[in-house]
């Protein structure tokens, strides 16, 4: 229970309990839930110094969504939430292969600079004339995931959905396929009925719009279906067929250029975020005051850009 309760969020006013499944519309659903509950702190989004790479992703920070964790509630209340018919126990799932592609695209392709070293060495980009071939790169990932499952599953984006949702332990009364048309609007309607608040689903944390069938051949799919066999069993996903072979999907020069700029920016944002979080507290303020005093004493006349801060 603790492993689930740490992720599961509770909206008391809406009487909705939600276990967010990574890469299954969790950003969108969290945003809707927090908006319906009235706990969403849009005013704090641009003040957060944690290294989220877009404003949309800041919804995952507790100070932004404002929803308590199931784990943090009294045991009696937990039991009530987990058993009462008045509560909606919500989770979202998605076809394992499209989810795996989404996880790879987000965590490996886009967030290159943040790949843990153990994972980075297993998933080199497959390049053609200096541009990434998505088909070959995704195939490399699927094979590496199959052979080094434990290494990847330190990142919960690669965890099987059955391990996150734990439908065997929690009696969900709203377990939805987020990749089916109408599901997200249906969640929005449910929240509106329960809170009288109009909730608009926003397209958050979307991918690059690449169709999975364009980058995943049958061999790659077989690796992934084997790795996520427990999800097929737990949620009854259909094992789809894929092309036996695919032409390479090599990024255009502009796509490659944009991707490289994105990588540089992520690296820079990570650095700023780390440095920003070190600049808190009395110790930092005292050091800065000392610096100002030294400058004054030595009559230094540095036209330092006030935006440039350093210790």
């Amino acid at each position, binding site marked *: 229970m603790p492993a689930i309760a740490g992720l599961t969020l509770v909206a008391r006013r809406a009487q909705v309990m939600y276990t967010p499944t990574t890469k299954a519309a969790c950003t969108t659903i969290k945003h809707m839930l927090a908006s319906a509950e009235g706990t969403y702190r849009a005013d704090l*989004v*641009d*003040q*957060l*110094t944690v*290294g*989220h*790479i*877009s*404003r*949309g992703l800041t919804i995952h920070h507790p100070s932004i969504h404002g929803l308590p964790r199931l784990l943090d509630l009294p045991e009696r209340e937990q039991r009530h939430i987990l058993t009462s018919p008045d509560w909606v126990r919500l989770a979202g799932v998605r076809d394992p292969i499209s989810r795996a592609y989404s996880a790879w695209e987000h965590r490996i392709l886009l967030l290159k600079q943040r790949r843990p070293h153990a994972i980075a060495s297993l998933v080199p980009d497959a390049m053609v004339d200096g541009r990434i071939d998505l088909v070959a790169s995704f195939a490399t990932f699927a094979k590496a995931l199959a052979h080094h499952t434990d290494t990847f599953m330190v990142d919960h984006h690669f965890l099987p959905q059955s391990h996150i949702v734990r439908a065997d332990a929690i009696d969900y009364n709203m377990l939805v396929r987020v990749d089916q048309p109408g599901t997200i609007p249906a969640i929005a309607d449910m929240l509106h009925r329960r809170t009288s608040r109009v909730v608009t689903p926003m*397209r958050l944390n*979307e*991918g*690059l*719009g*690449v169709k999975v069938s364009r980058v995943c051949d049958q061999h790659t799919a077989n690796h992934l279906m084997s790795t996520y066999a427990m999800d097929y069993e737990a949620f009854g996903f259909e094992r789809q067929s894929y092309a036996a072979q695919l032409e390479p999907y090599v990024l255009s*020069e*502009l*796509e490659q*250029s*944009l*991707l490289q*700029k*994105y990588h*540089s*920016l*992520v*690296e*820079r*944002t990570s*650095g*700023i*975020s*780390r*440095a*920003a979080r070190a*600049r*808190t*507290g*009395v110790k*930092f*303020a*005292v050091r*800065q*005051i000392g610096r*100002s*005093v030294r400058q*004054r004493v030595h009559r230094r*006349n*540095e*036209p*330092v*850009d*006030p*935006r*440039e*801060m*350093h*210790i």
Partner: protein
Amino acid sequence: MSGSNHAAFFGGDRDTQRLFRAALVAPRLKVLYMPTTKAACTTITMMVSQAEASHRPDLADRVMTNHLSPHQTIHAASVNGLLRLAQLPERRLHDVLTSPDWLRLTSIRGPLSRVYSAWENRLLLRAPGFARRLADRAPDVVTGLDGHQQLDLTATFANFVRAFADHTDDFMRDHHFMTQTRFIRPDLIDYDMVVRVDTPGALDDLAAVLTARSKASGTGARDVTPQRLNEGLGIPLARVCTAADADVLMSRYGIDYDTFGFSQSDARAALSSQLSPYVLSATETRLLRQLRGSIQRSLDIADATRLRRRAGFRAMRTIYAVVHKVSRRHVAIPQRFM
């Protein structure tokens, strides 16, 4: 910075303060470098800093300015380790600005390709800077349905040209769009070396000059080589800019053509009177939007940190004032030190 520095050398010209603050000084190399925006300033600043042996890449992560990549932090004083002209005592200014022992260096670039580069950086990518605020005057032209939208780059650039023509002064408040003549003021600073960065081999020649000066001055620096930093997206100008749009832009930069002898006819020669729309793919459009979103996020983090710093100081000042009162000692007024 002493006001008498300005009066002595530039006669109180309106650009004096900006020139003093922008110009970089490498005292061991004896190089004064005026970094011209969108004319390889990132690459050249890096080369000067490396030749001076003052480059501190280890400090890049401590810099809270809104640079879009670790390379661009070279523009931060703590990273490049160079002085600003404004920091020099008056007695040295004359030497730096007139002595034949000093190399007064700057760079220039064809105005049309430069303004395209500025648009790409400030408006297409929404890089931090004054011009970001003008993005709604040159809106994107997008086709397709939500989730499958595609940006028409040709039409979007045409929007920019119209907006730029109508609001030239506003755009030129961002020095990426400012004329090079105004930015580097060759009438005030007697440059010994004006590098045409769009001429093949020019940066290599500059690297050789800086390497030679570095060896002569004994900075201990290794050979300097130009690196490709802060490059654009590689979109050919001829794909998005018609000859008519080029004429509009070139007319606004007429002074640069006159001052530096750039050829308008050469710039126009590669362009067409009509263009097929250059429409980005859905993936390219999404990547562009992801990039913009992440740029905004990095701005948020940097701004939030600066606000927090000011709040921290206000808190400390309050504490200091309370301690001062309680101790009943006469100490220096806190505001002078904070």
